[in-house]
């Protein structure tokens, strides 16, 4: 019973988290600086910044770029604590996998010691390389996360369309988004459905069978849905052409943003 409750709680919790993480557009709806930019211009600026981050090979530049990122966080009404947490989660992972071995690369010894009887030497080149690596990852991740949370999902898709990414690709992205939503919805509803009929105690086996059955029916449903959606598209004149309704309008502020980005990248 207790274990059951634990599983139940964690399933419900995970679903709620997923929903929150993928579908909450709370930050994108605030009226901060980044949110007010034309998505096309914003994304162009971010691409430039990312490119610069990827090719930068000294620490100062990277620190500077990271500083810009944090500044953007502050003027876009993103909670700094939330943002740092979300981006720093990745860092230990990367540093452990790739950064750490780099520490012990060849070069002038900076520190040496014994670990489990093995002599380890940290070289200054190694330390420097590891730092640059971690900084670069951190900055890239931060820019990507920032762009992601300040832009609404559909705007990203729309910009992809406007940038002439083939529609089939964009549509698949959109559809997967929709299926994840549907899937979470169905699991939640099934769960509620079972609960309303058998109470809160769900044995493992039937539960498992129900989930499996639901995956089958989800598959069938999505097949049917696809056919019907296709009919609906036909009915409104779809002939397989790429047509996007762009109502984005670049204003002075957007040009200012792009100019600032280019200026900064040019100086450093």
């Amino acid at each position, binding site marked *: 019973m207790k274990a059951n409750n634990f599983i139940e709680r964690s399933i419900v919790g995970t679903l709620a988290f997923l929903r929150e993480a993928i*579908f909450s557009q709370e930050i994108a709806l605030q009226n901060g600086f980044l949110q007010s930019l034309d998505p096309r211009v914003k994304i162009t600026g971010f691409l430039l910044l990312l490119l610069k981050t990827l090719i930068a090979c000294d620490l100062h530049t990277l620190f500077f770029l990271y500083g810009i990122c944090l500044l953007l966080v502050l003027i876009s009404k993103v909670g700094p604590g939330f943002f740092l947490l979300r981006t720093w989660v990745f860092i230990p992972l990367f540093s452990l996998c790739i950064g750490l071995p780099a520490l012990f690369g060849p070069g002038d010894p900076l520190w040496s010691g014994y670990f489990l009887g093995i002599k380890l030497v940290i070289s200054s080149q190694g330390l420097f390389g590891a730092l640059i690596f971690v900084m670069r990852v951190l900055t890239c991740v931060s820019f990507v996360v920032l762009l992601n949370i300040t832009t*609404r*999902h*559909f705007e990203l*898709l*729309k910009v992809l369309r406007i940038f002439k990414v083939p529609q089939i690709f964009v549509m698949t992205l*959109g559809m997967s988004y*929709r299926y994840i*939503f*549907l899937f979470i919805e169905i699991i939640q509803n099934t769960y509620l459905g079972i609960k309303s009929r058998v109470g809160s105690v769900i044995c493992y086996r039937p539960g498992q069978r129900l989930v499996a059955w639901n995956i089958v029916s989800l598959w069938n449903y999505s097949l049917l*849905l696809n056919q*019907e*959606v296709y*009919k*609906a*598209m*036909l*009915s*409104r*004149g*779809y*002939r397989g*052409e790429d*047509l996007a*309704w762009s109502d984005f309008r670049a204003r002075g502020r957007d040009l200012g943003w792009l100019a600032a980005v280019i200026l900064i990248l040019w100086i450093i």
Partner: protein
Amino acid sequence: MAGCGYFNFMDNLIFELNQVYFSYLGRYPALCGVDIRISSGEKICIIGANGAGKSTFLQLLDALIFADKGSVCFRGKELNEKIFTDAKFSQEFRRQVGFIFQNSEVQLFCPTVKEDIVFGPLNLGFEKGLIQKRLEMLIAALNIEDLLERSPHQLSIGEKRKVAIASTLIIDPQVLILDEPTAGLDPLVTRNIIDLLIQANAEGKTIITATHDLHIVEEIADTVYVFGRQKKIVKSGPAETILTDTQLLQENNLVHIHRHKHKDKVHIHPHLHLDHHGEDA
């Protein structure tokens, strides 16, 4: 001859079906010998039990599926797969015939409500200024301003329905086909939609509706067609005649069976929901 050269606009006949048969996957019969003639400017209703073939019939009219046997003609042209490979014909047909699905879920597939609404006119090559103008008009008529930037699949059923209706009305088609347009809607929205349809009909549009909701039939139909269990039209006639034919309606699951408690005795009787106001009073 008006419009493009494809269609015969001389006489009033829009749809003409002769002995139409259709089955899903060749196994599940859905229509078995349907004959019907629909003229321009008519408003008609299709009623019948669940599974009687109403949706199938409407999809056939919109050329989303094609008859196995028999013929479906639109303004003198037979509708078949071949004729729809002609891009110009297909565009002209889609401009003239609009379809509102029974399941709004499938009709909405764009990332936002707004994109969904403009999908039709964009694909049919309408001018941007015109699209914008009609969009604003529909937003006002259906009161969907707040929904525009939202994702369609996160809306309530009634909101989805309104958006689906907007996405078809924006094409401003001559023939409007609606599959249960008012199912699951609150009375006020139902009223709005019926008013929209009546207005469209007054402007000369042809309205073809399938519904279970007998309250609305009289307002949106001159002629009512009843689809029976045989999956074909078993009776047709003016709304007043059909709606008072209790036996016919009962045979086709179209009347409510009510349980009433009169004093201490419970009795059950079939019950027609037409004089709503009279009965409630």
